[in-house]
């Protein structure tokens, strides 16, 4: 048993330790607390990258927590997809944390850093676990932490939105538990791989229950992913959240998508009887509508943060359009676009904040404010972020959308898909251009804002996010190759079954 063998659990342990420590030191020694938080994020990134390297050859690491063999204990499964999500999370976390610290947003209320670390623990756990109930637990961890973070800074708007966000998710959790109970009652197991094998043996008499359970579970994931019509909770929640937090939340809807990608092929794939590919008839239409609504929202929104929030919805829709294909090509395209859209939306939230901090009373709303220092620079950041979010060249979103277009061309409904993807891009472009030109070009009567100019340090985080997008475009060849490999791995549940269950898999 060497240190390397514990690799899969590190991304969970690191924040789980960092959180209580920051909690203990924060009150007296701020700097140390922030230091711990940053170090923890870097360590997480390191662990993620190590895992990425480790699994890039196709190996699937299975880590039996408590050394109880799967399916009896909880097992962590690190494959290409998990590693990808972990690295993505860690990088995003660094960006968000950087912004929070630089803009001192972390001081606007209690316990930002412990909550932040716990949030990351929940995310990493959700990406790693190979056990359905454990997935529920980690969902709850990341949710309760997100409640705290979403309310960070408080104020009426956040509290109002908070009530709705929390209640909706509580209902979601309730449904999750019902689905779990039903699945356990039918299959007698909680381990995903094991359940994938057991569903094949479900007698005809229980097929109805099986399908119901599957539909309930999928609908929970759809709620987390904010798929129309279950997306209503998202827009205001994200728009009012502290920008650094909102940036981190860019990954939250992706958790729902991830869960779909992870669970459907593994548990409800071929041979799942009545539950085979259970979301199939609904996912594509819902995704198309979601994408449409999202970018229509971008078009209709009246402030940068609101646009960012709707862009999250739109990007999730676009992403799920590809997922709904359930082929290696489409899933690969989806994974590439997932990474891209996460950073793009995060960048939007951050740029919106940078602008709002400079426009004083005008915030990031489309009302023309006085000129402010570095307007064209911030404007340039916004344009880049907007290009990325809409998927125009030369940023990675373009490549992502090309991948999706190309991979979906073979599918029966490609006409709809293409129409929506290209159409939403246009709506998005127009929307961003309007609000952007109002915020960054139009000067209201009365010149520069009479406030002390803000140091441009707060541009660091958004610039970093955009730089990552540039890298993602430059390295698109490698990235999409990895994404395809990850997709292929996910779509072959036998692989992970063998890795997790060993000889039990037969």
């Amino acid at each position, binding site marked *: 048993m060497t240190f390397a063998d514990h690799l899969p659990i590190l991304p969970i342990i690191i924040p789980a330790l960092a959180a209580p420590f920051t909690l203990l030191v924060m009150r007296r020694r701020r700097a140390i607390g922030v230091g711990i938080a940053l170090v923890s994020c870097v360590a997480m990134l390191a662990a993620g990258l190590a895992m990425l390297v480790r699994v890039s050859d196709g190996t699937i690491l299975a880590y039996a927590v408590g050394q109880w063999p799967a399916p009896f204990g909880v097992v962590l499964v690190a494959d290409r997809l998990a590693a990808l999500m972990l690295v993505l999370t860690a990088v995003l976390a660094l960006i968000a944390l950087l912004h929070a610290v630089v803009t001192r947003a972390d001081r606007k209320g209690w316990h930002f850093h412990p909550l932040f670390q716990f949030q990351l623990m929940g995310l990493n756990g959700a990406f790693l676990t190979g056990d359905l109930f454990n997935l529920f637990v980690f969902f709850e961890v990341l949710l309760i932490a997100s409640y705290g973070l979403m309310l960070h800074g408080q104020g009426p708007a956040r*509290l109002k939105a908070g009530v709705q966000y929390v209640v909706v998710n509580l*209902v979601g959790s309730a449904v999750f538990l019902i689905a779990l109970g039903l699945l356990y009652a039918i299959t007698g197991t909680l381990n995903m791989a094991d359940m994938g094998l057991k569903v094949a043996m479900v007698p005809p008499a229980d097929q109805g229950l099986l399908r119901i359970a599957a539909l309930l579970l999928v609908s929970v994931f759809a709620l987390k992913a904010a798929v129309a019509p279950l997306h209503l909770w998202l827009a205001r929640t994200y728009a009012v959240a502290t920008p650094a937090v909102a940036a981190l939340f860019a990954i939250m809807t992706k958790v729902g998508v991830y869960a779909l990608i992870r669970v459907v092929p593994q548990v409800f794939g071929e041979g799942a009887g009545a539950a085979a590919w259970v979301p199939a008839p609904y996912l594509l239409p819902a995704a198309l509508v979601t994408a449409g609504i999202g970018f229509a929202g971008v078009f209709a929104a009246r402030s940068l943060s609101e646009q960012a929030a709707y862009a999250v919805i739109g990007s999730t829709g676009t992403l799920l359009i590809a997922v709904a294909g359930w082929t290696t090509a489409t899933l690969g395209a989806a994974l590439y676009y997932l990474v891209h859209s996460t950073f793009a939306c995060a960048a939007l939230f951050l740029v919106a904040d940078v602008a709002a901090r400079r426009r004083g009373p005008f915030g990031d709303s489309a009302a023309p404010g006085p000129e402010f220092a570095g307007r064209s620079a911030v404007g340039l950041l916004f344009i880049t972020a907007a290009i990325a979010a809409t998927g125009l060249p030369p940023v990675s979103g373009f490549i992502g959308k090309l991948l999706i277009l190309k991979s979906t061309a073979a599918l029966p409904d490609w006409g709809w898909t293409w129409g929506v993807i290209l159409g939403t891009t246009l709506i998005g472009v127009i929307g961003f251009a309007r609000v952007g030109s*109002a915020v960054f070009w139009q000067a209201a009567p009365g010149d520069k804002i009479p406030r002390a100019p803000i140091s441009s340090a707060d541009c660091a985080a958004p610039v970093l996010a955009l730089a990552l997008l540039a890298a993602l475009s430059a390295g698109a060849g490698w990235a999409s190759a990895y994404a395809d490999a990850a997709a292929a791995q996910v779509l072959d549940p036998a692989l992970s079954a063998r890795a997790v269950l060993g000889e039990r898999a037969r």
Partner: protein
Amino acid sequence: MSYEFLVASGIGVLVAGGIFLALRARTFQVVLGLTLLSYAVNLFLFASGRLVIGRPPIWDAVRGGAMREYTDPLPQALVLTAIVITFGMTAFVVILALRSFLETGSDHVDGDIAGRDAPDEIADDAKAQAERP
């Protein structure tokens, strides 16, 4: 009348009550609704181990470690976890509701606010003509 019917119908009634209350407009009613829902969910999860009388999953020398001697312990463990989590969530939402009431002066679930706060049209389009020299 079988126990199975009593439990199942009980769950159903709790769910119905929960959904109805969750759809009310006052935070406190919604909290009550969520409470009912969580009772129902815990019972449901518990029921996934079926109903067994007089065989608690506690080892004794006589019965040893044979599955059939005991009721299914796993759902019980899951429910325990669920109860704890639900308690945490309920506590949080209760206090959030109270806090939002204190902040906004209304215990309406939407804080008595509908629509958005942002200006309704982009100034650029409206002011375009006016601005022209």
